[in-house]
Structure formats: structure tokens, C-alpha cells
């Protein structure tokens, strides 16, 4: 009897579940193949002993050693790191302040508009931002005579803010306001409420935001290409330049390391940003 009703139940579930639609698994495998096959080939050929990126001969880690000693790669990596770290710290700070204002103040006139403005850069085509920034900076550079990597860092900071803002705001919205009220009720001044309650509880969101900002900055090509001056070649730009001169497995090796760092950071963001309720559990 119970067997019968179970089968009936399964049939109903099969009919509703998208997984059982005809052709579903073929489409899934095709999509996964197109997404990951190129990356797997890239990683595979970074270990090729041959100079070719299409003909496999034998396993070797030579290209990693070679890339490690390549001064061009070294300086590009350092510039990328410098820009990304500073842009990450600045954009996360601004994003944190913006998230606090848009979640911890009573609703004010224009609040929805400010949220939209903060998120807007995500909607504008990057090439438009790049060209606009290039022209804008050119005007400033001409007027002040200022120059240097500060411009590139500023550009990165700006486009990283919305990325950092999203997880921080999400975290703050998930936090129960009564926790901060409880702290204020227990004689904590607004500054102490922030230091002892708000900040520690929003920290996972801030860390996710910071890492997201870091990755977005390190990955960026278009804006860096337009805004970066001479001697400000970031790692993606260096790789792009190398490929123009013909691909060697050295590029594969650098890209693989790059991929590894990205995967680690994304995993960390996922772990930190996992929704964990701050509300105390209700009684059973």
C-alpha cells in the first residue's frame, strides 16, 4: 500500500521536476563542456614539455619556473597586486559606509535613488566607463600636471564599490536591528554599539565584499587598458600583450596560477558569505 503511494508520489515529482524534462541532461553536459573544457586544456598544456600549446609531448613544470623568473611577469603581477590591494581597501571602506547608511538609518527621501546610483556602474557597459574615465582623467592630468598610478587605482576603486557593496548590504539586512538596540539599552554609546556589535556581526559580509572587490580589480582588462599609463601594465594586460606575440605555455602557466588564486578567493567568499542567521533561535 505504502509502496504504491510512494510510486505515485514519485511520478508527480518527476512530472514537475525540470531535471526530468527531455534533453535536459544533454544541454547540461554541453554547457559544462563549453565552460570548462577550454580551462582544462589551458591547465593541461601549462604542464607540456613542448613549446606547442596544441601538441602534447610529456609532463614538465618548466614553464612555471620560466614564468616565475620572467621579469615582465613579476613586475606586472606586482602592479596588479598593488592596485588590487589599495582599490580593495578603499572600495570596501566606502561600500561599508554606503551599506550602513542605506540599512541603519530611518528611510530618508532619496534613499532608493542612492541605492540605485551605487549599483549603477554594474549596468553601464565597461567600455563606456573606460572611455569616459580616460577622457575625464586626461582633463585633470592636463589641468594639474599630475600623473602616476593613483589614477589607475582611483578608477579601480570606483568600479569595485558596487561589487563590495552588495554582500555587505545583504549581511546588514539580515542582521536583526534589535541586537544593536539591546547594546544601546545596555549603556553602549553609538560608537561602542558599532565597535562591539555591528562591526563584528557584519564582518563576514565585509570580508566577502573585500575579496570580491580584489578579484574584480585583478581581473580587469578594459578599464586598465584605457586608464593605465606607461609602466602601469597589470597582469591581465601583460598576458594580452604576450598572446599577441604568439602563445607559449608560459602564458598557460601564468593563467593557471591566476585561476588558482581566483578559485581560492571565490571559495573563501562563499564560505564567509554563507547566510548564517544572526537572530537567536526561537525556542523549540
Amino acid at each position, binding site marked *: 500500500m505504502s509502496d504504491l503511494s510512494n510510486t505515485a508520489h514519485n511520478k508527480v515529482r518527476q512530472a514537475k521536476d525540470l531535471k526530468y524534462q527531455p534533453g535536459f541532461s544533454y544541454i547540461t553536459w554541453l554547457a559544462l563542456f563549453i565552460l570548462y573544457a577550454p580551462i582544462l586544456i589551458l591547465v593541461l598544456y601549462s604542464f607540456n614539455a613542448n613549446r606547442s600549446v596544441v601538441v602534447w609531448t610529456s609532463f614538465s613544470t618548466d614553464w612555471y619556473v620560466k614564468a616565475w623568473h620572467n621579469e615582465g611577469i613579476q613586475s606586472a603581477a606586482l602592479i596588479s597586486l598593488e592596485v588590487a590591494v589599495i582599490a580593495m581597501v578603499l572600495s570596501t571602506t566606502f561600500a561599508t559606509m554606503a551599506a550602513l547608511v542605506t540599512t541603519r538609518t530611518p528611510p530618508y527621501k532619496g534613499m532608493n535613488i542612492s541605492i540605485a546610483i551605487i549599483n549603477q556602474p554594474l549596468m553601464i557597459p565597461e567600455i563606456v566607463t573606460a572611455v569616459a574615465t580616460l577622457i575625464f582623467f586626461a582633463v585633470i592630468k592636463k589641468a594639474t600636471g599630475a600623473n602616476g598610478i593613483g589614477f589607475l587605482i582611483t578608477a579601480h576603486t570606483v568600479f569595485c564599490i558596487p561589487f563590495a557593496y552588495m554582500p555587505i548590504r545583504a549581511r546588514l539586512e539580515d542582521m*536583526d536591528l*534589535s*541586537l544593536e*538596540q*539591546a*547594546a*544601546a*539599552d*545596555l*549603556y*553602549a*554609546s*553609538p560608537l*561602542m*554599539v558599532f565597535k*562591539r*556589535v555591528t562591526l*563584528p*556581526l557584519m564582518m563576514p559580509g565585509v570580508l566577502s565584499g573585500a575579496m570580491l572587490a580584489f578579484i574584480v580589480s585583478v581581473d580587469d582588462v578594459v578599464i586598465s587598458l584605457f586608464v593605465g599609463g606607461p609602466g602601469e601594465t597589470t597582469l591581465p594586460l601583460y598576458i594580452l600583450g604576450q598572446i599577441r606575440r604568439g602563445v607559449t605555455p608560459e602564458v598557460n602557466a601564468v593563467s593557471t596560477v591566476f585561476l588558482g588564486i581566483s578559485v581560492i578567493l571565490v571559495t573563501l567568499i562563499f564560505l564567509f558569505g554563507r547566510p548564517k542567521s*544572526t*537572530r*537567536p*533561535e*526561537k*525556542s*523549540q
Partner: protein
Amino acid sequence: MLEKATRSAIEVRSTTKIYGNDRASGVVAVDDVSLEITDNEFFTLLGPSGCGKTTLLRLIAGFEQPTQGEILLFGEHLEGLPPHNRSVNTVFQHYALFPHMTVSQNISFGLEMLGIDKIEIRKTVSRMLELVQMPQLADRKINQLSGGQQQRVALARALAPNPKVLLLDEPLSALDFKLRKEMQSELKRLQNETGITFIFVTHDQEEALTMSDRVAVMKDGQVLQVGKPREVYDHPAQRFVADFIGDINILRGELISTKKGEAKVKLASGFVGDAILPIGVGDISGVVNVAIRPEQLSFSNSTNSTLPGIIKEITYFGSGLHYEIELSTGETIKLRQQSVGRSNTEFSSGETVNIAVADDAIQVLVD
């Protein structure tokens, strides 16, 4: 000594709280409320949800500012003072314990903020853990505690800084029935032991009656009646209070004498009985509503000064019987009979009976 006992802990003077722009377009959460809560009192704000009881509590805590009126804490004006400068602590409805701290860190938080030295804090924390009977759980994280344990930690945390007044916002509503009963007597014990004034918010009339020294019944932002649980139960002044607290019969009647202490009312069925006039209300006369508790009614063999009726329904509820009886006027009244031994007279549905009314049982109501 006497003077200390009657000192007012909280004085709410014609306080109004309006959310929104004004009375017409906004929401009036608290409407011209005046209350005096005595030192060392267990005072309860009772009312249905949306009656303004929690808003009143938040005004005292400082999370909201009154639109009009003033609130005094032991004679000190609270207007404009932020929550962290008020010597009152709150037990929140869902406890609001800090999830990133241990039990003892939660309890010591308020003391740290007051700048009390470490040794003193440690002593107070262990005293508080003793007080709420969970010293073995000092180093637990909050999410490792059950609902009842969280409740105790929330109490300990709010009591640790020794506030002048403790505010409790429906703290028992999230607990199951048995735990709630247990915490009711626990709260009463804590209030006795600490001597701190408790202001307790609840929508549960039974909770209010069993725990409080005095109860204020609220509706639509207004306080309808303040009094000892017995007074509020036995002599509800208004129809809403009578209806909200316990089971009650409300009948139409005419006041035929309003002399003080000798008021008489004539019910629609012709029955004439002594009536109690509501306290603090001006002249009333003519047709009124009167309230009679079901347990104040009993069956009588005599037809003299009794109400005749026909039994419509009988419900057994363990410790007694509940009768629904239709009067000659068409009104239905409830009668409650406690089982005493096995000697209860048995009645059955459809039977004609005479109902006697106990002395002082007829309460005249204001609508």
C-alpha cells in the same frame, strides 16, 4: 520606609506617540497616556496586539521619542536622553542575545559599558548566573542554548547592571506552555529577590493576572483601566476590559437607583439586583450594559429573585461544567459550575432552570 514603598519609579504624563506627520494622516500608537508605576512593583501592560503597549515600553526605554508628553524615571526627566543614558534595561521579545559572544560575555556587556572594573564584573556575572540557575553554562555560545536557557540569559544580562526599572517585552511568548508557566513563577521570584521594578508587556490575560501587582489594560493606544488583578477582574469598568479578561456575560439593564453603595439595576428579564458602579466615572443613568462572571451564577430551587432560562448546551471541562442558558429575553448567558465531590445536581439540555446571582456580582460597564 512607608514613603520609600510608594515612591514612583516611572511616571508617564499625558504622553502621545504618533507615527507619521499628524494625528489625521499618521498612526496614533500611544494616545494621551498617564501612568504612575510604583517602586518595587510588578506592573503589567495588557492588551491585544497593536494596542500600543510595546510602543509605550519603547518610549520608556528610549528607542522612540514621544510626540507629546513627558516620562520621568524616579523624578528625573527622560526626554531627549538616548537609550544608553537611561538606567532601564530591556528583555526583548526574541531576547536579542549577541550571537558572537558567550553567555558570560553577554551578561558582562552592560557592566563593561558602565566602566565597572573586571573583578567586580566577574563577581556580578557569577552572581547573575546563580540567580537564573545556570552557572554551568557560562562559556556556552548562544546558539547552543535552548529557548528557555536563552530566556534566562536575557534576564541575567538585563538585570546585571542593576537597572532602576526592568522592561520586559512579551518575553514568554516564544516559549511553550510548560516552560512559560515555569518562567512565570521564576520572573516573580526574580522580582522579589532583586527588588527591581518590573514593567511587563503581554497580551495574555492569565499571565497578567497571575504575575502582576497591578495591571493596566490598553486598547487603541489608551489605558482603559489600571488596578490590582482582582479589581480589574471583578470590577471591570469598561465593556472592552470585561470582555478581554476572562469569560463574562454582558447583559442589557436599566439603572433604577444610582445612590452610592445602593445602586440597583433592572435587567431586561425583569430581574432586579444590587449593582456596582464603575470607579472614577461620572454620572451614569438609564440603559446600561452590565457584566456578570459565569462563576458568580448558580442554580436555584426558588423562583424568587432568580432568572429563569432554558439550558441550551452543557460542556464538561474537567474541573467543572459550563452551561449555555437562554433567558426569556432571548439573551444567552454562561454559567460555570465547579465540581464539588460528586454531589453536583445534574441538569440536561432543554431543562428549565432558575439562576441565582451572587452578591456584588453585577458590574455596571461604561461602553
